[in-house]
């Protein structure tokens, strides 16, 4: 039996596939510590990467978060991670990102709002931690691919008492 898709549905499946592939590639580059490639090839120049606080979870305007990087600070974060200056990521931790529940929330032609769930396992310095969160991406369409313009990871943890720190890029 074959399933006939309408033209619209075919386009949606293709788009969803491309977005998913894009996010999987992002996860792979981050897991492989190919951070400069990720920064150069997958992000816009005006990227903003945020992780809200675990208590107010980004719902409160003006609140302090855990991370709120513009392009310059994110670039700095990456350079520090790569050159061994980040004491707690030297030797580098091993990570494994699981991306799921990828959903295109809005398609504005040139921009997409995408939701996904993520679990990042981190192993290093005798510890193992899992970061569980919900991602929101604003993707800018660039030909057949995309660039990330806004990247928010809302952690589901009530606290990071167990983790202590967040020294990797989620």
């Amino acid at each position, binding site marked *: 039996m074959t399933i006939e898709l309408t033209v619209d549905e075919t386009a949606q499946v293709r788009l969803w596939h491309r977005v998913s592939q894009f996010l999987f590639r992002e996860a792979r580059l981050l897991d492989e510590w190919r951070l400069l490639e990720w920064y150069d090839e997958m992000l816009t120049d005006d990227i903003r990467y945020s992780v809200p606080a675990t208590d107010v979870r980004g719902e409160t305007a003006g609140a302090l978060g*855990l991370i709120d990087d513009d392009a310059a600070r994110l670039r*700095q974060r990456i350079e520090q991670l790569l050159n061994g200056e980040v004491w707690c990521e030297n030797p580098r931790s091993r990570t494994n990102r699981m991306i799921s529940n990828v959903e295109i929330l809005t398609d504005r032609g040139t921009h997409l709002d995408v939701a996904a769930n993520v679990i990042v396992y981190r192993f290093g*310095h005798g510890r193992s931690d899992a970061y569980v969160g919900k991602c929101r991406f604003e993707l800018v369409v660039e030909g057949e691919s995309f660039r990330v313009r806004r990247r928010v990871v809302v952690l589901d943890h009530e606290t*990071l*008492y*167990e983790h202590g*720190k967040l020294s990797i890029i989620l």
Partner: protein
Amino acid sequence: MTIELQRPVGDLIVVDDLERLSFRVDRRAYTDDDLAAQEMTRIFDRCWLYVGHESEVPGPGSYVARDVGGRPVVMARGSDGVIRVFANSCTHRGALICSQPAGQTRSFRCPYHDWTFSNQGELVGVPIPDGYGPGFRKADFGLAQHRSDSYRGFVFATFDPEQPRTLTEYLAGATEYLDLIDDQSEVGMEVIQGAQLHGARANWKLMMENSVDIYHFRALHKRYVSYMESLGSVPPRRRGGFGRALGLGHGANELPPAAARPLAYWTPMFGAEVRPRIEATAAKFVDRFGAERAERITGTNRALLIFPNLMIIDAIAITIRKIDPIGADQMAITSVALAPKDEDPDIRELRKSHYLTFLGPAGFATPDDIEIIESCQRGYLNRTVRYSDLSRGMNKEVPETTDELPAREFWRQWDRLMRGDDGHLEVAHRAEMQGAEPR
């Protein structure tokens, strides 16, 4: 109050030798489960402990629920406007009467049997009251209220009804530094929403020591320093400043700013646009306080340790860091930012941004602090090395910030309380005090 010594006489944890200028701490202080349990009764059950800031309960009926000294409490502003600290436990059978971390309410209702308490602590509702005899009086079942008080907006409570000191007496020389912080706004300071709730797998005292240790800064925080320099900050190489013992375990470092201060100390890293505003604020402080005190308020960094478990770090942003032990080898850290209520929105954004650059579980500095104290904790597993050394600056009349005087002040009070002494200043240690005696 005397507490029986459980360690044999002569089995010292803190070895304080003023003659040899040597100060050592037996590493059992960081690893021993019995000592950790004793700390709860000898220190956390007795001292004044930081609960929160008045701005967190801004109006009648507002409250926050959190753990203080290992006990769940509610800090609530009653409908009468008074801030009280209650045990968060129903007087009937013990359930938490408040399970929301923060909110606004006229009353707290225990979900177990619907006992209801006003936001001033009185028991106001008991379902099916005919189950009690004539001797039952609601007045006997109000929420347990802890002795609490505030100083310049900082609310503290003590679980010891016999605590001999008022809060102001307890704070001793630390009041001077709380003044320097609260004086930063005429309309008051406020906690910015969004708490950084993290921790470390290390003894809580390691974070206290780390927070007043400037010696490690250039070694451990190279990446932060180089980033700030790349932004155009004045490199924090300028020496100067000093450490102080403030009495009763409190200590402080005071030093020239390493970078900039959002209130009123501009450097190029803040950008030209905000310069006039920041400089105008600086001028206002000179009018209000005179040049010398204005410089101290606006142009000086400080790290204040309030015994036992509060740090207030006033540098490129102000952080209030409450550190709670979880057994001997783990801690919870609660960090929030404090800022003037009337802060210019652009400058508030700068403050938050720079706070995040340095501080918190994902900043460019704090994660390395967490990792290094966890590393110390792992190092202690090798019990062959018995002592840690905190002697720096004992050879100086005015210890520098790269010395360890505030940490020694902390440990001396820790030692007095753990030995069952009620914490009066000992004459022998006044040599290391700089005029800050309890009033």
